[in-house]
């Protein structure tokens, strides 16, 4: 099902089959050249597959934008251990709602992408880690997997290749941290989702302590098109080093929020004004959070940029997970900062102290500040704590909490100051003030 009207400006690659009747079924997938890309890769060496991926300049859609071909090349061969394929469909970064659509509308495209990964490293099995709240998707993906077995794309001696491969779904049970790759791998082993020390990275020591290809659901879903239509074509869709399209999840104060597939590098202001029908109620733009709630916000005047990994990084933010939150002039930045830190505090796994304590104190101070008990020196204090956390936590959840927090203060200090004027004078014991 589609939850918003598509836009004529979209360039449909991973969403090309969305909205077609029975798009989740294998027959319709096969009728649309389904599994042809996989068949092609069966004739290629692992090196040739990885070279093609590198040439496509596909970068990970899960958050960090790491080049996918390069990542696959890190998987050691001949270790005597099996290699596993893991699809990260934990999708929990606020602002992000695309993997859901990929699994709902085209699960075979995902399975085909994972199969190509599996064949490249001659893996015996792949797991699709799906957040627990997406129960209906587990049923859809399970049905698709069963169809793939029936047609010989999974199981023993796949298409006469002599290679066996199984795919399973694995449910999460409510934990944002399990989207972090090493915490996900712990969770997959039946434990609390606590991150692992890196290196070694999952490519070398991953699922079940074996070499592993771990990618986001959208990353895997983009792979069949690359082998169907060529790496050069895919690369040419976006700017250099930013191949292909991306499902941009737009939310907030626009007339037509929705998920739209657009080429990387698509101008942010055109996304707001042309794809999403402009700002709601004729309001002015205040800020945009360009890559999920962990990405530093951009002020309106910084929004004249293209939506690709490098351009957003140049603007000192990040393309992240593709969740684009558009905020109008009436948005209460202090309230937003508080809600953001509440989330990260709730989701911090508690393993490392800077993250556990940092998010807790930031929440406490922001709560008091927002509630009217703020003091002028709190502004610098919040900034200092967030800066102090950044880069010093065991996994990137601490960074994800710190970046938006200190950026809100740097870019909207005036709003924090204005809050002090509004503050109710309140007698708060000195201890609680810290």
């Amino acid at each position, binding site marked *: 099902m589609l939850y918003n009207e598509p836009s004529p400006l979209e360039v449909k690659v991973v969403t090309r089959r969305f909205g077609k009747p029975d798009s989740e079924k294998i027959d319709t997938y096969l009728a649309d050249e389904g599994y042809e890309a996989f068949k092609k890769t069966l004739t290629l060496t692992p090196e040739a597959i990885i070279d093609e991926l590198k040439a496509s300049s596909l970068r990970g859609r899960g958050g960090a934008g790491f080049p996918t071909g390069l990542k696959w090349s890190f998987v050691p061969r001949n270790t005597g251990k099996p290699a596993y394929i893991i699809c990260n469909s934990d999708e*929990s970064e606020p602002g992000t709602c695309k993997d859901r659509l990929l699994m709902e509308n085209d699960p075979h495209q995902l399975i085909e992408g994972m199969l190509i990964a599996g064949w490249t490293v001659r893996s015996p099995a792949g797991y699709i880690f799906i957040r627990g709240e997406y129960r209906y998707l587990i049923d859809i993906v399970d049905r698709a997997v069963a169809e793939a077995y029936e047609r010989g794309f999974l199981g023993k001696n796949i298409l006469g290749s002599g290679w066996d491969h199984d795919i399973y779904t694995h449910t999460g049970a*409510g934990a944002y941290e399990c989207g972090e790759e090493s915490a996900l791998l712990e969770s997959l082993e039946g434990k609390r989702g606590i991150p692992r020390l890196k290196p070694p990275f999952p490519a070398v020591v991953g699922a079940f302590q074996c070499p592993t290809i771990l990618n986001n659901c959208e990353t895997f879903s983009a792979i069949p098109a690359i082998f169907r239509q060529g790496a050069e074509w895919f690369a040419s869709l976006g700017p250099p080093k930013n191949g292909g399209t991306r499902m941009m999840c737009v939310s907030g104060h626009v007339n037509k929020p929705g998920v739209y597939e657009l080429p990387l590098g698509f101008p942010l202001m055109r996304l707001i004004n042309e794809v999403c029908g402009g700002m709601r109620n004729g309001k002015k733009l205040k800020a945009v959070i360009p890559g999920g709630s962990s990405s530093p916000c951009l002020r309106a005047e910084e929004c004249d940029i293209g939506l690709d990994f490098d351009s957003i990084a140049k603007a000192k933010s990040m393309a992240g997970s593709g969740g684009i*939150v558009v905020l109008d002039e009436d948005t209460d930045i202090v309230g937003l900062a508080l809600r953001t830190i509440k989330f990260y505090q709730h989701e911090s796994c508690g393993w490392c102290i800077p993250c556990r304590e940092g998010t807790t104190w930031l929440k406490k101070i922001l709560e008091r500040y927002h509630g009217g008990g703020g003091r002028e020196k709190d502004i610098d204090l919040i900034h200092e704590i967030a800066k102090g956390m950044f880069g010093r936590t065991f996994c990137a959840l601490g960074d994800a909490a710190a970046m938006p927090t200190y950026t809100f203060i740097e870019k909207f200090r005036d709003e924090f100051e204005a809050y002090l004027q509004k503050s109710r004078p309140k007698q708060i014991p000195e201890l609680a003030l810290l």
Partner: protein
Amino acid sequence: MTFSPALEERFAKLLTSYPAGRTRSAVVPMLLYAQDELGWVSRELIEEVARRTGVTAVQVDEVIGYYSMLRRHPIGKHLVQVCTNICCMVVGGQDLFEHASKTLGVGHKGTTTDGLFTLEEVECMGACSWAPAIQVGYDFHHQVTPERFDRLIEGLRNAEAETRKV
């Protein structure tokens, strides 16, 4: 413990889904799928899952506090979850939660006296572009207004009254 045939089938599949000697991997899925059928995770269930996966009861117990969907107590028949994270918040998600709280007469994690509804304020559920969003059980509802919320609750109440009559 005995479970429904469908759940037994799921369990059997889970126990063969992971590499040899890795049945511990099935712990979290088993707990969640069993909770869906039984409503909550009891001491008995913990011990059963431990037995079936060949791990200690403590190893099962320790994951329950970590995963927010797993719970140690029964709740109402319908779990109503309202997202108040940022994308929902900026288009009325917080107000919607407060409205839901008023309609149901309970706060966060509260259960109505008739045992029909449990309300919960939750984090982003992956419906940000169609906010504000709620989940009732595993069903998503997008762009929920206070009026739509009330109609939904009324519908569920009426359906319950019907089944009680029969």
